[in-house]
């Protein structure tokens, strides 16, 4: 991921516009990417300090430093580093220093302190070479960490990743993002919604009158504490958004150290995301397994429906339950622990007459009471501590199964 200072953007008034690479810039980027990748590949098994030195030299000498620094950052993100310290550096240092101290104590007037003699003595005692000692003495420092692996990538792929990383870096500074999407394939929406759920993003989805959907996503800067993890999740949603036939996005930002309120607009048409794969979030997957192991009459499957209350909004459940005997259906949406606001939006949706039974699972530290939803409503809140309990959810399913569901609006005909 790129940091804000590596984003190529121009400010005009309160509008931030990304400046894409022009033909010349792209050619330069490809060349720089190839050079930097070559250096990085040649430095696998060498130290962070060694690679940093040569990379910094290339970045410093580049005509477009911001471009070079951005590419270098993306390469560093792909490197795995480890402390390579076969000898415990702390113990080794104590050995060497204590011996040096003893040597000092014996030194005569006019004698010189012999550093190499001290190192040689320690090396001999440990059955190592002086070189081993020199290398091992500060092997725990950051710059001495060894690059063990570099995730393979080609220069054109790196430049493509750089193109994507630009808007992603912008999203990391967002307070609110409004996305409008349009697709000819209905499945594409579901894929996108699933991805948003998988990333545990806080969003309100509403169908547009002229087709497509409008998605309002809370940005990391709207949370109590601006969370890097949440920002990263938002950035990861961008490849999924870019896949839709037509998409546009308006992000309200807090830009720079002054956190200046700016607005950034992006749009595009169907760019396939090669790494796309619909998933279930880990906690939902764990819950699904636990529910199946419980052996209740409730048959559980990952949800495929989008629950829509025209004029009020949309709710995308995570799991759908169907009772083996009665055929009653209940949905479950895991809201997790990001924001209370998201919970209140769901409560409003239910109170407005959402024609489905649904349980919302909410993390305890959002301090929402389960009593926030009336018992006559076809929805229930389940407040959980750390992990969701399959048993507690089944209890709520049983209770909801007896509650009346409002009739679908527009379904009634004269």
């Amino acid at each position: 991921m790129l940091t804000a200072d590596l984003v190529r953007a121009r400010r005009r008034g309160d509008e931030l516009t990304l400046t894409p690479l022009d033909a010349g810039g792209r050619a330069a980027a490809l060349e720089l990417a190839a050079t930097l990748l070559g250096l990085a590949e040649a430095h696998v098994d060498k130290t962070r300090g060694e690679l940093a030195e040569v990379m910094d030299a290339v970045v410093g000498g580049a005509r477009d430093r911001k471009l070079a620094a951005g590419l270098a950052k993306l390469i560093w993100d792909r490197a795995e580093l480890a402390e390579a310290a076969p000898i415990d550096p702390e113990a080794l240092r104590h050995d060497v220093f204590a011996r040096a101290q003893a040597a000092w104590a014996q030194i005569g007037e006019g004698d010189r302190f012999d550093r190499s003699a001290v190192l040689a003595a320690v090396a001999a005692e440990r059955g190592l070479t002086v070189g081993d000692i020199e290398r091992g003495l500060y092997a725990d420092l950051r710059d001495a960490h060894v690059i063990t692996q570099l995730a393979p990538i080609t220069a054109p792929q790196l430049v493509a990743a750089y193109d994507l990383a630009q808007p992603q870096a912008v999203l990391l500074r967002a307070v609110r993002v409004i996305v409008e999407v349009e697709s000819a394939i209905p499945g594409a929406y579901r894929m996108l919604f699933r991805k948003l759920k998988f990333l545990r993003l806080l969003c309100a989805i509403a169908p547009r009158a002229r087709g497509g959907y409008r998605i309002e996503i809370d940005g990391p800067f709207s949370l109590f504490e601006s969370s890097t993890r949440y920002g990263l999740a938002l950035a990861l949603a961008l490849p999924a958004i870019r896949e839709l036939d037509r998409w546009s996005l308006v992000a309200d930002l807090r830009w720079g150290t002054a956190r200046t309120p700016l607005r950034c607009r992006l749009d595009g048409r169907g760019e396939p995301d090669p790494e796309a794969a619909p998933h279930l979030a880990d906690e939902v997957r764990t819950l699904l397994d636990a529910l199946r192991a419980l052996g209740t009459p409730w048959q559980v499957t990952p949800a495929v429906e989008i629950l829509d209350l025209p004029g009020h909004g949309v709710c995308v459940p995570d799991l759908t339950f169907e009772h083996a005997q009665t055929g009653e259906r209940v949905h479950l949406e895991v809201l997790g622990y990001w924001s209370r606001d998201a919970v209140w939006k769901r409560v409003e949706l239910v109170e407005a007459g959402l024609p489905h039974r649904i349980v919302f699972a909410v993390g305890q530290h959002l301090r929402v009471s389960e009593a926030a939803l009336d018992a006559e409503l076809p929805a229930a809140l389940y407040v959980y501590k750390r992990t969701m309990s399959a048993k507690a959810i089944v209890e709520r399913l049983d209770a909801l199964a007896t509650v009346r569901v409002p009739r679908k609006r527009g379904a009634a005909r004269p």
Partner: protein
Amino acid sequence: MITHQTKVKERSALLAHLADGTYRALVTSRVLNEGVDIPAASVAIVVSGSGAVREHVQRLGRILRPLAGKRATLYELVTANTAEQYTSERRREHVAYR
């Protein structure tokens, strides 16, 4: 040697060794400017520093912890006829240095 990268455990071990005489000298960066108490330390050599009076007084404070029969000495390494001379004069504008 103690720098910002030295972990807390090793830091306290190094300081303990300095206090009990196992080590005779310690090289450090700004991280030891304040908050460390080694009564046995009697000589400080400032190799580099800013013109800040506050920082310099705090550094002096490291060797001014009382111990019977101790005489504390602070040396400054300054290159003559360079900006360092001016910086050194500036940071000594405090009663502690008069």
